[in-house]
């Protein structure tokens, strides 16, 4: 039991409950269905991105280019749909975006696996490159007049609950996030590829000796993250009913912070899907609901920063204590 409570996931869960109670106590609207649906809606895109980032971090790498891939895929797909297939369904759109994302992710993978370059350097470079190329060669104007399929998707609802004033809608894109989450969980937990990702993040040399094909795993990781980013970007645009080439880029650190808060370690080898889900929830609540208790928007960033420092600091201190404790036991 005590082991469960000491786990990072439990710590984040407790923080979420506490934060919710504090906010809800001061402003009961927090516990309304409308607000709950709003929070879920805000988690959709970050949730998809976070699953990609989790995989990269577990493998011992870091990817900061995923936002550029997302917006690149969104904008290009919107233009392709508008010009060549205005009547195509939203699923075609998602498939195009995923393919574009996969292609861009493979560029990351190529530099990382082939030339063994540090992942941060490569993805910092491609972040700039992908975004720059988008603005220069594909377009820099906001597309507001999106294809009808995207428009219809934006207006659809999975659950509709009538309220005193208006209606509370739960957007069906939450199903995309849910599916991605389950797929990533199965991948990491039940496939040799997933275990290879943990092995790579834990001890690269040992993973090589065990017979894992490291370049192939890296191609998968960065390709898959690209694919998820494409889907996430498309989801973002389809919900916002516009394709703005300046959107999404700049939110990398928020997503990485959510994943790290959820217990993934930047040194690799550690991180869970459950933890990441909780991390995303915490960041989304802090982002969306602090305003309900009168924390000004500008202060929200400070609060999130504090949560990250405390959230990652506490487990570190606990780990230190635990290791001292076990060292004593070992000597006794």
């Amino acid at each position, binding site marked *: 039991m005590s082991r469960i409570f000491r786990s990072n996931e439990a710590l984040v869960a407790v923080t979420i409950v506490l934060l919710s109670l504090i906010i809800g106590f001061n402003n009961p609207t927090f516990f309304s269905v409308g607000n709950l649906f709003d929070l879920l809606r805000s988690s959709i895109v970050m949730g998809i991105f976070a699953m990609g980032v989790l995989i990269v971090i577990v493998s011992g790498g870091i990817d900061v280019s995923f936002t550029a891939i997302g917006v690149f895929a969104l904008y290009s797909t919107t233009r392709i749909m508008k010009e060549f297939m205005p009547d195509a369904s939203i699923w075609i759109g998602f498939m195009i975006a995923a393919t574009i994302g996969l292609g861009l992710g493979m560029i990351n993978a190529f530099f990382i696996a082939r030339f063994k370059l540090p992942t941060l350097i490569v993805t910092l470079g491609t972040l700039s490159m992908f975004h720059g190329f988008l603005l220069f060669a594909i377009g820099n104007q906001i597309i507001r007049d999106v294809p009808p399929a995207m428009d219809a998707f934006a207006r659809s609802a999975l659950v509709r609950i009538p309220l005193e004033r208006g209606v509370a809608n739960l957007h069906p894109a939450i199903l995309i996030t849910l599916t991605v989450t389950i797929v990533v969980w199965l991948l990491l937990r039940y496939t*040799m590829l997933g275990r290879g990702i943990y*092995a790579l993040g834990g001890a690269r*040399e040992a993973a090589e000796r*065990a017979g894992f094909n490291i370049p192939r795993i890296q191609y998968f990781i960065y390709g898959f993250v690209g694919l998820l980013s494409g889907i996430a970007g498309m989801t973002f645009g389809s919900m916002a009913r516009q394709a703005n080439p300046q959107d999404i880029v700049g939110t990398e650190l928020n997503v990485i912070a959510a994943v790290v808060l959820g217990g993934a370690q930047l040194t690799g080898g550690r991180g869970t899907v459950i933890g990441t889900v909780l991390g995303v929830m915490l960041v989304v609540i802090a982002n969306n609901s602090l305003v309900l208790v009168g924390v000004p928007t500008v202060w929200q960033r400070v609060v999130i920063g504090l949560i990250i420092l405390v959230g990652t600091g506490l487990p570190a201190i606990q780990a230190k204590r635990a290791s001292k404790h076990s060292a004593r036991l070992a000597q006794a």
Partner: protein
Amino acid sequence: MADEIIRLTGIHKSFAGVRALQDVSLTLERGKIHCLVGENGCGKSTLIKIIAGVYQRDSGSVQINGKEYEQLHPIDSIREGIQVIYQDFSLFPNLTVAENIALNEQLAEGRRFVNWKHVRHVAEDAIAQIEVQMPLDARVEDMSVANKQLIAIAKAMRQNAQLIIMDEPTSALTEREIRVLFTVIHKLQQRGIAFLFVSHKLNEVLEISEAIIVMRNGRVVSTGLANEYNTTRLVYEMTGQSIAEKSYEFTPDLSQPALLRVENLTVPGALYNVSFEMRRGEIVGVTGLLGSGRTELALALFGMLPITAGQIEIDETPVKIRSVQDAIAHGIGYVPEDRLTEGLFLEQSIGRNVVVRTIDKLRGAFGLTDPARVKQQVDEWVTSLRIKTSDPDLPVKTLSGGNQQRVVVAKWLASNPRLMILNGPTMGVDIGSKNEIHELIKRLAGEGMGLLVISDDIPELLQTCNRILLMRNGSIVQEILPGETNENELAAKLIED
């Protein structure tokens, strides 16, 4: 011959023109424990990598289980049942014990999905095979070095190991853990598994091995049954010269005040009523099992553990040591156990590492360091401690273990300590460097410094110290004079409960 696993004949191997192996021939037999000894750089690692299929030989023949291999790839070697356990054990710290044991096997079977029940089953079976207890759900990073090694052996056994090659298997183990390891090895040996140890801990080599292979400068210089060798002969074969270590003679000058007097020193949970005295020029050994308080004593004297009761006197004056700064101010230096993580900045140059403690004293105009003075001091230490390097500007990590140890010593000597505490001063260094470090310790003592040597290397204690303090459960239980004991007696006292 049916009981041969490996027969190497006339193996040559060069790297960029440098000869690593010359005309190496040897055979390894089923159910036998072999030991490969030799100094660092003698070609041991290259030889292992050729057997493992990691390196390809330039010429010569390799026969495994009677089959001639033109080209030997790692996968062939593994299929023939050859398992190499490297010093880092090739384990994944972030995964559980069970998964670590089963992972390689699952991968080799070409599985795409993980069946966790199967993983557990494999791990239970493997642990049962070597007849030890192990928490299967714990993460490997929480296991002791000894357990990690057993996990690596269990993993090798699941892959139908016929020959297990172990690189420095005992270097980080305590006496008791070595016993457990040896028991496991003997059990597996009875089932026909062969072992090849690569080691430089000579006493343990002689104790467990049946066949000895000695290498020097890329050649096999001597092979034979273990009972034909003793430590002296092994040292001679390894180095090509006789190294005669004389024990350290010391006559206390009682007219001088005691350099250090410790009375009833107590650190709760670690040390209880520790009292002893030492004089200038003395080399006092402190020994005991891991957890006996030997390291804690060093840490307490160096201000790294809070002292709750007792008194420390230096030159008959009571002093308070509450921090590392206090200890340094009173002229105490400490060379830690794990010099790599605690003692050195590996990426930095040899010179910078030497002067890091005294950099404040080397300031010139405007409070900036004076490069000429720094260089002068660095050169002085490099010469006087005979640190073997072409250039003190090279990073410390380019040096051999023994030379790295000398850099740590130089770092402390630069601040002119009166008392040096050396924790495991020759752990992980080869026999030649070990001898030189012993000479250095004796020379420093001869110049009037007091040295406290913490070690569980029994020959080392007997050869370098003029007195040995035996610790158990946080107290000094006996004071031993090297002249009045021998290796076996001291070893027995060490593990006695």
